[in-house]
């Protein structure tokens, strides 16, 4: 989807592309331009009848097919692609600058060289790109080590903070990939402690060490489908019902809920699944009187006793 051009700009890019890639496979070109082979053949048929004024045999764009490959022998003067539009220059340059500014993603010096070349090629269209910035929290202490381990396929040791339990855990992991989602960076890895794929927020990594142990392949590891959001609820998780008054509505926006229901007077009832009710206890404490646990009742009682225990320190 992302690369598909409307037909005329596609044809204007197709001619110089074919000129630069004689003997390229039709299927590869179709894939690159994100059209079906059928559509590409219609495009080529159209090119064939276009050309310089006069439109005699020597004036037309000329193509030669050989098996499933294609060679363009006459471009009719369309020898280079059209310049980048302002939006196109902006998209590439902003992405490159983000890459340059985020430690650990790529070699800064290489990115800077690339940036200079693309900026020069974009010319005047590059100017507005300076007014758009994309910042990614790369966690500069952690991300370079993680990337290095991924590149070298080595195991990592993590000291990882688990906010639900408010404790730091120690574990070895085999890194799978780095995810940058909504401004945060995560490591998806096979956790040897949990014997499964886990997602680690890099801003909660207290310390990371690359081990001199090769990471093992985990064919059973299933990468999460990001189109469904970052977090998946499991049917084994506890179903929690929260009443959220206006000051706590963010909870329903922030966490994936099974259902969210308005019940009048500005209160929202949200049902969500979690494997970790300790997290819900902490959440309920921080919400104070703007939110409360409705179900399960034993969790609501735990929150009450947590609050009483905490309060005793203030009355002493």
């Amino acid at each position, binding site marked *: 989807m*992302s690369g598909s051009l409307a037909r005329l700009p596609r044809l204007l890019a197709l001619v110089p592309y074919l000129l630069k890639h004689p003997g390229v496979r039709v299927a590869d070109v179709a894939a690159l331009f994100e059209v079906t082979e059928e559509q590409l053949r219609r495009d080529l048929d159209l090119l064939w009848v276009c050309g310089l004024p006069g439109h005699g045999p020597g004036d037309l764009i000329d193509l030669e097919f050989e098996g499933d490959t294609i060679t363009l022998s006459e471009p009719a003067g369309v020898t280079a692609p059209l310049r980048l539009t302002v939006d196109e220059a902006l998209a590439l340059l902003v992405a*490159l600058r983000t890459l340059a500014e985020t430690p650990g993603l790529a070699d800064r010096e290489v990115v800077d060289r690339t940036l200079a070349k693309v900026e020069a090629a974009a010319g005047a269209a590059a100017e507005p790109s300076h007014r758009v910035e994309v*910042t990614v929290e790369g966690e500069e202490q952690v991300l370079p080590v993680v990337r290095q381990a991924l590149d070298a396929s080595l195991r990592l040791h993590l000291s990882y903070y688990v906010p639900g339990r408010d404790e730091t855990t120690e574990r070895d992991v085999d890194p799978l990939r780095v995810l940058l989602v909504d401004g945060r960076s995560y490591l998806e890895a096979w956790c040897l402690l949990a014997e499964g794929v886990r997602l680690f927020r890099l801003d909660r990594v207290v310390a990371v060490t690359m081990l001199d142990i090769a990471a093992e392949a985990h064919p059973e590891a299933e990468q999460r489908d990001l189109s469904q959001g970052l977090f998946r609820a499991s049917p084994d998780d506890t179903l929690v019902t929260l009443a959220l008054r206006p000051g706590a509505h963010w909870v329903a926006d922030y966490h994936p809920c099974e259902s969210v229901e308005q019940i009048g007077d500005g209160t929202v009832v949200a049902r969500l699944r979690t494997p970790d009710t300790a997290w819900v206890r902490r959440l309920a404490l921080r919400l104070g009187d703007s939110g409360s646990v409705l179900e399960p009742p034993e969790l609501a009682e735990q929150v009450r006793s947590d609050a009483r225990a905490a309060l005793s320190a203030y009355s002493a």
Partner: protein
Amino acid sequence: MSAKKTERLLNLVICLLHTHRFLSVQEIRDAVPGYASDTEDAFRRMFERDKAELRELGIPLETGTESQAHDDELGYRIARRDYELPPISLEPDEAAALGLAARLLHSAPLGSATGTALLKLRAAGIDAPEATGALEPRVGGNEPAFEACLAAVTVKQVVRFTYRASGREPEARQVEPWGVVWWHGRWYLVGHDTGRDDTRVFRLSRIVGPVAAVGPEQAVTPPVNLDLSALVARMAGEEPRATAQVRMRAGAGWALRREATGCTPGDDGWDVLELGYSDPERFADRVTGYGADAVVLSPDEARDAVVRRLQALAS
């Protein structure tokens, strides 16, 4: 667009790229197949639409006359140096960086422009590999206001919109836009709020309804040496206003400890942390989550905010 029209436009581009001198409308009509058969009026209307479409795609149509001697009709041509992407060649490591960068904004509102830009560079002979595997970036939300704000920033045009600031009724705003910034998972518009005569940062998700461009393009002059990200971080983030002292059980509260400006270990298994905050209520939200492991010692406004939360929960 019909195949017939695509064919006509492609022939028009080839014809105008080929010519060195300005071609009159009549010459264009004779040279480009597809124009000949219509009446003069129909041809003129069609040509006007075609010109607009080419300009829409960023094809630089140049207008002028060959001589100043007589009142020539305007002619047209496409200057090759304005049309063509200048030659560019990338080393393999640079091409890989480009592929990675393209992936970075793949899912952002800028994603489709990234894709078409990459196609043009590939047509210029650059072999940018598809970056896959180890890095999976998802940058950029889909706030409805993004497109209009980006367009206004690009052409430096004043905008008007309705904005709902946190805890307030929606209000009409007029802004000279300086830039858009993705920061901490959100898009922001930075600019000069003309109604308040001051610099403001707007969260795009809080813009209600459409963003209207007002007045001419190129009407906005952003300050020189503007650091957009720093401005957003300063204005959208929180500058500490006061310092609280919090007794924290040893080993607990790592997330608070990493932000502490000071930590005095006690001999009773508790430490005293010094933490900056701007809003006592929001500070209390965070501290209360640690339950009995955290006790606010001072100041009173923060201590009272925590106690109020706990009392509401304990009853």
